[in-house]
């Protein structure tokens, strides 16, 4: 099982590459309201995480995900 911290770290790394200009943002950052991701961006982030951890994340659960921490928790539960 992958640890929660590993999930957070991976999400932070992916976001640094795509949306936060190279900086590491805190886990409580809101993906849409604070980091400015569009819904399509969130889905692409999830696709990358699915591949990284070899899990399947249903997009029905996206509505419950607001922060990096939320997403990390869900991904960890799937591993």
């Amino acid at each position, binding site marked *: 099982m992958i640890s929660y911290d590993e999930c957070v770290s991976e999400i932070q790394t992916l976001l640094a590459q795509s949306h936060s200009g190279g900086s590491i943002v805190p886990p409580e950052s809101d993906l849409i309201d604070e980091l400015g991701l*569009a819904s399509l961006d969130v889905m692409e982030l999830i*696709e990358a995480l699915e*591949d990284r951890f070899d899990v*399947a994340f*249903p997009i*029905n659960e996206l509505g419950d995900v607001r922060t990096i921490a939320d997403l990390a928790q869900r991904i960890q539960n799937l591993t």
Partner: protein
Amino acid sequence: MSLLQKLDAARDFQDQLGQLGVNAIGATIDVTGSATEGKIEGKRVILAGTNNYLGLTFDPACIEAAAQAVRTHGTGTTGSRLANGTYAGHAALERELSAFLGTRSAIAFTTGYVANVGAISTLAGPGDVIMLDADSHASIYEGAKLSGAEIYRFRHNDPADLDKRLRRLGDRCARTLVIVESLYSMLGDVAPLDQFCEVVKRHGAFLLLDDAHSFGIMGETGRGLAEALGIEDEIDFVTGTFSKSLGSVGGFFASRKHDVAPLRSQIRAYMFTASSTPSVIASTRAALKRVAQGQALRSQLWKNCQRVHEGLTSLGFKLGAAPSPVIASLMDSPEQAAAAWQALLDAGVYVNLVVPPGAPKNLSLLRCSLSAAHTDEQVEQIIEGYAAVAQRLFDQPRAAASAYA
């Protein structure tokens, strides 16, 4: 948050579009005198954004059939199929459609959108899985959401990615509906359908093909991409629309492998909405006959597609896909796309402006759709319109490029 804050957000979005300086989504076609020409704001334009692939909206046989049906059966059915809205024409259209497609049965719907929502939300349910292409049409997403099934996306037109994601599902593949389209409406790219079929079959899942955009224009007899590839028997379910090649409005759900007819009493989008008007059904039936014998129309359409694709490529436009009836030019920004759209309209060519979030991958597009009814002269006028755009927008000549290459 107030309920009405959503209205503010919608207004903000409208304002953003307004700041682009054009009225692209509010453009009204005042007069449509033929399948390829109309008037917008008093100006005569070539219609190159109406998905009228075979030009059948003005086919004399289709018009006559519709006119006769209005006189004989009136203007509307005033009810749903299950209550009072099934006319002999509805049943005949379903029989003819089924015979044309070689399916066990077919169900006609009021629109193509409703066909997808109804079919998908009924085929899959809680406990099932829907695996859909990331660039799927809104009606597919809506149907999937309504079904209550778990929904996963795979990367657009990527059979290897689908393979990987089905593998992760394991035994649940037997309860999985995979959904792809044949020809994607925004970029005009075609699905590697034979490869998708192989992957889906290997994992024991089911495949639904939304054939809205290749129906009528691909395959020897116009049965679409699956006919062209010789794999119709491999497709579990197919949905489609009457509002593209068939020149009317409506949709269908059919299958060669399974009898979908019993689902009539389960599909809420079929049971609880008004049925198609008699004139629509009559013109659709006439158009279906034209499609079946439409090799000449298809040849003309593909010739027009090749010519416009070549013309735009040589002007330096970056195009979204290989030649198809949808030719999307990839623009650098929403602002540039809007200016180009207006320039084309000024040049007498109406196409579609597509800006985020309406386009895949946040692209800004000029979307041109071609018709068999476009004359050679009109095709050249379309290209000349794009040449005016190129001159106005591109500071320096662009190297000819296509994004799909």
